[in-house]
């Protein structure tokens, strides 16, 4: 079977990512790559909520924290198998997503964002208050993964595989009827209703899905950190997830993925930027919003459109009535 350019580039990128432990050079870079993949597990799911469905959640760091503590408590304190603990973290956060989404997803944009912000703040307070469960301000140490994932390489490959899976799942959602329905909810709720999209249920479904991926990401994040305290889950982290998607571009998958990589790696790789801290994120956000408000993803699209030869741009509408009649009658013959 001949491969398209697209599948070849996907294969090349995947091969490069799998081989990363051999070309990354040092373990720190490998850790950074694993961290990026972990963030992407969360951001990939969140992308359906923010980028496709247009629901501005800035509180996913709360779900990340719940997933991380759930993993640390189940796998550490109770000695549950880490694999099961990861799944349990995802399930718990999907449930939290459901409970948070049920009342808040009916709110208009700004108020929904505030509700998710409040949620993230509440989670921090609870982790501090429930000291006998979470270790309070002292925190919890997190057990590692069992063999063969107990080496830095093994952990990286596992996280990479999960990140690839999340990418595949969200890509499938985005390019089929569900993706079009979500974009309709984002861009014109009236249109979404008119074609039959159950607006609230669609929002809630992707929000629960994003809760699941945030929970899994939380577990993986805890493993990478090996020790977690409430300070690990600062509110800026929630804003960072959101900004990755806005910079990457709404309604794209590749854009937010690049956004995640750039925003995580740049401050780490370029020392002067690290000193700037949040200032760097703010500057980048400002630049993107002012220069390419549709994000990095749109820049790629525009480049591709430029490369493609333009045929004469006709705008003349000329109906083909026989074909129209056949198409309508075919539709009406379906029961």
């Amino acid at each position, binding site marked *: 079977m001949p491969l398209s350019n697209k599948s070849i580039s996907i294969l090349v990128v995947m091969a490069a990512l799998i081989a990363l432990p051999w070309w990354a050079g040092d373990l720190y870079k490998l850790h950074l790559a694993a961290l990026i993949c972990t963030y992407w597990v969360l951001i990939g799911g969140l992308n359906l909520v923010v980028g496709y469905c247009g629901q501005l959640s800035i509180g996913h760091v709360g779900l990340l924290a719940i997933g991380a503590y759930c993993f640390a408590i189940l796998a550490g304190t109770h000695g549950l198998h880490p694999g099961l603990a990861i799944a349990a973290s995802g399930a718990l956060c999907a449930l939290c997503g459901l409970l948070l989404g049920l009342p808040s997803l009916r709110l208009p944009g700004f108020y929904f964002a505030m509700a998710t912000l409040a949620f993230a703040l509440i989670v921090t307070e609870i982790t501090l208050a429930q000291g006998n469960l979470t270790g309070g301000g002292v925190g919890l140490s997190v057990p590692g993964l069992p063999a063969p994932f107990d080496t830095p390489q093994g952990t990286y490959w596992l996280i990479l595989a999960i990140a690839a899976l999340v990418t595949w*799942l*969200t890509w*499938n*959602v985005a390019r*089929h*009827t*569900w993706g*079009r*329905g979500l*974009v*309709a909810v984002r*861009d*014109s709720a*009236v*249109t979404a*209703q*008119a*074609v*039959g*999209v*159950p*607006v609230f249920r669609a929002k809630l*479904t*992707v929000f629960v*899905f994003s809760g699941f991926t945030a929970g899994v990401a939380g577990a993986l994040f805890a493993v990478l950190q090996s020790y977690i305290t409430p300070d690990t889950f600062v509110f800026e982290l929630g804003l960072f997830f959101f900004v990755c998607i806005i910079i990457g571009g*709404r*309604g794209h998958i590749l854009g937010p993925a690049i956004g995640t990589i750039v925003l995580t790696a740049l401050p780490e790789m370029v020392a002067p930027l690290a000193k700037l801290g949040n200032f760097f994120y703010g500057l980048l956000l400002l630049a993107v919003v002012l220069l390419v408000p*549709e994000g990095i993803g749109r820049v790629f699209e525009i480049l591709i459109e430029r490369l493609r030869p333009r045929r004469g741009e*006709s*705008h*003349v*509408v*000329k*109906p*083909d*009535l026989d*074909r*129209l*009649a*056949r*198409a*309508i*009658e*075919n*539709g*009406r013959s*379906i029961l």
Partner: protein
Amino acid sequence: MSLAARDITKRFGGLTALSQVSLELKPGEVHGLIGPNGSGKTTLLNLLSGYYRPDGGKIALDESEISGATVQRRANLGIARTFQKPRLLPTLSVLDNAMLGGWRDARAGFFATAFSLPQVKADERALRSRAEELLHGVGLSHAIGRRANLLEHAEQRFLEIARGLAQRPRFILLDEPAGGLTAAEIEHLGAVIRVMRESGVGVLLVEHHTDFVFRISDRVTTLDVGAVIKHGTPDEVKRDPEVIRVYLGA
């Protein structure tokens, strides 16, 4: 078999937008709805498609009441509509916009979609070919892959009609579809509406171009300040002194 408004009253605060209005839309007919600005045409269309709830009277589909049904429920029952100002998804392609109309026929749920099960691919193929045929049919062959925000006004109007037809409607409600079209484009629109009628779709045509409405409609209802002043064949309505006085003039 009909989509009907029976003695509908609709108030907005102290304003009575419609009072005791009745209208029956039958399959395979074009029903024109005309009247001066603010006479309640679009309000009636919003009541039929479910965006508003009536304060009195009922909306019935095939004699069963649907006054309380959501817009989505009515879409699934086969009622489609277009908007006065076309409401498209600007970042999606023309084809994707038309395929959005096939939502009710995509049977795969979220998880089946996420895992790309065979049902999803089958749905997608069927929807794609239906949407492509409709786009060729309404005259948008040249624009199928284009982003919807690059369309000109007339193209947007025809794309909305294609999206509505992709819903496989029994009834389609067109809100001023000729608005902003050139004479030639209005001719095309008329031809498209006739094809819908011949295929058995009931078409409600809310329009200001009265000559167009009289030329194409089987029956015409005229509204003025929220009440029906005349209902009948185009010829009857055209000659009615009251219609001439409040709307047609001279």
